């Protein structure tokens, strides 16, 4: 994150060069961070799906705390990106404005001088315009990329916000959570007992016992038959 901040700052500094490598580093870092966040989110989800057990409460609570941390980090990243975006836009407009101004000034001063040099200077203007167009197109592309990553992060944040506890609500109270644990554990116990009872009373057990008894009876009859004969 710190690296990303530094890269942002460097790219924003007015430079004479094209600044392509800066853009690439920024892109790379942003994608890396987004990827890490997404991976952590997946692992978090896996933590939840690992089935109920004694320490499911522990799991849930670990999940919650990690989710809060993740949400904070992604919010930080998004804030940094949006400021970068804003500044980028400002710069772009500023540059365009400068270019246009330069063109106008150049045009005016040259028209004053010589009418013969008209053609040459028109060409000069054209190349300048084309150049600024190219720069604009490039800037737009960069902005588009940043916006995309912003959207991705937004999606992650929404997923995470379901996990995170809202501060100050009843869910954030220790005694409420203890009460809930007690009731869910009791409920679970009751369900288990009920299931146990239904299974015992189940038809399968009856059938099996009847069949076993009949087998024993048949065996006895068989033995009697062989003895008698």
């Amino acid at each position, binding site marked *: 994150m710190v690296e990303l901040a530094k890269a942002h700052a460097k790219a924003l500094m007015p430079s004479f060069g094209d600044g392509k490598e800066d853009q690439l580093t920024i892109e790379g870092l942003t994608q890396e961070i987004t990827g890490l966040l997404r991976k952590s989110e997946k692992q978090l989800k896996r933590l939840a799906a690992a089935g109920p057990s004694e320490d499911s409460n522990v799991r849930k*609570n670990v999940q919650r705390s990690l989710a809060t941390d993740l949400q904070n980090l992604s919010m930080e990243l998004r804030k940094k990106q949006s400021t970068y975006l804003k500044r980028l836009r400002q710069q772009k407009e500023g540059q365009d404005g400068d270019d246009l101004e330069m063109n106008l000034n150049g045009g005016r001063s040259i028209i004053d001088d010589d009418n013969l040099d008209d053609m040459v200077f028109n060409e000069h203007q054209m190349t300048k315009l084309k150049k600024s167009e190219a720069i604009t197109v490039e800037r737009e592309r960069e902005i588009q990329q940043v916006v995309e990553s912003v959207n991705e992060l937004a999606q992650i944040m929404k997923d995470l916000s379901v996990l995170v506890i809202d*501060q*100050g609500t*009843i869910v*954030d109270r*220790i005694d*409420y959570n*203890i009460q809930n644990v007690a009731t869910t554990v009791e409920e679970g116990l009751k369900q288990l007992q009920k299931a146990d009872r239904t299974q015992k009373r189940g038809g399968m057990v009856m059938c099996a016992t009847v069949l076993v008894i009949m087998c024993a009876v048949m065996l006895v009859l068989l033995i009697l038959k062989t003895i008698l004969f």
Partner: protein
Amino acid sequence: MVLVSAAREYVNRMLQDISGMKVLILDSQTVSIVSVVYSQSELLQKEVFLVELVDSISKSKESMSHLKAVYFLRPTLENIQHLRRQLANPRFGESHLFFSNMLKDTQIHILADSDEQEVVQQVQEYYADFVAIDPYHFTLNIPSNHMYMLPAVVDPPGLQQLCDRIVDGISAVFLALKRRPVIRYQRTSDVAKRIAQETSKLMYQQESGLFDFRRTEMSPLLLIVDRRDDPVTPLLNQWTYQAMVHELVGIHDNKVDLSSTGKLPKDQQEVVLSSEQDAFFKANMYENFGDIGMSIKRMVDDFQQVAKSNQNIQTIEDMAKFVDSYPEYRKMHGNVSKHVTLVTEMSKIVEERKLMLVSEREQDLACNGGQVAAFEAVTNLLSNESVSDIDRLRLVMLYALRYEKESPVQLMQLFNKLASRSPKYKTGLVQFLLKQAGVDKRTGDLYGNRDLLNIARNMARGLKGVENVYTQHQPLLFQTMESIIKGRLRDVDYPFVGNHFQQGRPQDVVIFVVGGTTYEESRSVALQNAINSGIRFILGGSVVLNSKRFLKDLEEAQRIAKSSTNVV
């Protein structure tokens, strides 16, 4: 502020030096103590991933040795027994024991003996033995509160238990504040005297080393009063936000349980009303009902504006902004719905029980004179069908408390009318109240009609008229605080314990009401502290009363008194 931060500080110290995943084990009392000052998300930040009760934990058998156990318990007999069993078969890796009050040597020996596997890493005393519900208000949530109304001969062990718990709570407060006070008590109350003497013995003789703090110029003052000196305040209906919610619905440990009042969405059935966490509540908890309506309307309008701007999402930028502010939006939404639900419920109840009418009469009985007019008004209200039983009982009680001696015939008439009208009314409850808290038993000048100055003041107030008929009552506590500020608390009425003495005005005063405090009184204290007159008041009680709880305590006490006289 200072009590809440002291309790938080203790919890912080318990958790900070222990690294790794922890489980926090509490008993039923310390759950309340910790829940009002610490939230679940803060616990998660400190890596506490499981919270359990000490009695339920023994039923489970799975061993979680990767967790470290942090125990925070009251040093009672049952807790020591639970601990013994758990130390003998430890489920967790390490154990750190913290107690909310002083441990006896015998208890430490028992614990040491049962720690065969040496899992105990430390044993400390952190004196958070009180529930700090508001910055200047604490309670002890004692279930056997009604014992204070009975003489000692009826149930000596029960009363001893109550007094012990109160003494423990008060000493914990002063240990948390790191001060040792000068103690005064209300002369006419035996319970107050007993508690004052036992506290003094504890602080000055038995544990004088523990309480020997750096002496500042002025020792703080501990004043122990009895609820029966002001039985009017818990009986009145309230119209300021926090007090009203407690009176009509009930607040317990800063939580409000709305599940019994009709159908509500699941996340609004139980809500939290804490001035520490809710800025709107902090600004409005002492405002009266009309002003609250206005504030809530403003809050809803603000929220609607935010919601509207969120619906207007056109560009990607707007989307990004929306997602940025989504958590805050959700929090605001929750808060708005909580307060709107509360106010709606209360308005419903006010409408059903015709509380505007009843309360006007109650305030008259509490504040203004005129026996004849009062008698007529109460009789009329008793005949009114839509007035509920509990309100009728309260009206008769308030009348009886004020006009006990004037015209006993009319008083008898009211009793009979009440008994005939309210089938569930337990006969003799009003008389029992008069026996407990009648004019002869009270020290303070409850109605302002004992000395000339007060009478004159009342007359002047009557002529001037009051701002709001429904909130004109001032609890007796207000007068007591004023006397302390002026340094004129009478020695005759509130003597010092033993050979304590204090010249001049104290800077810190803790007032403990045996029998329970009310939110109206805590409001009085908070407003007094806000004026900043150089003295800081802290209010505490054995429970927080509303009229239902006060009447229940009376009934319990009456039942026990009756059964004990039958036995004798």
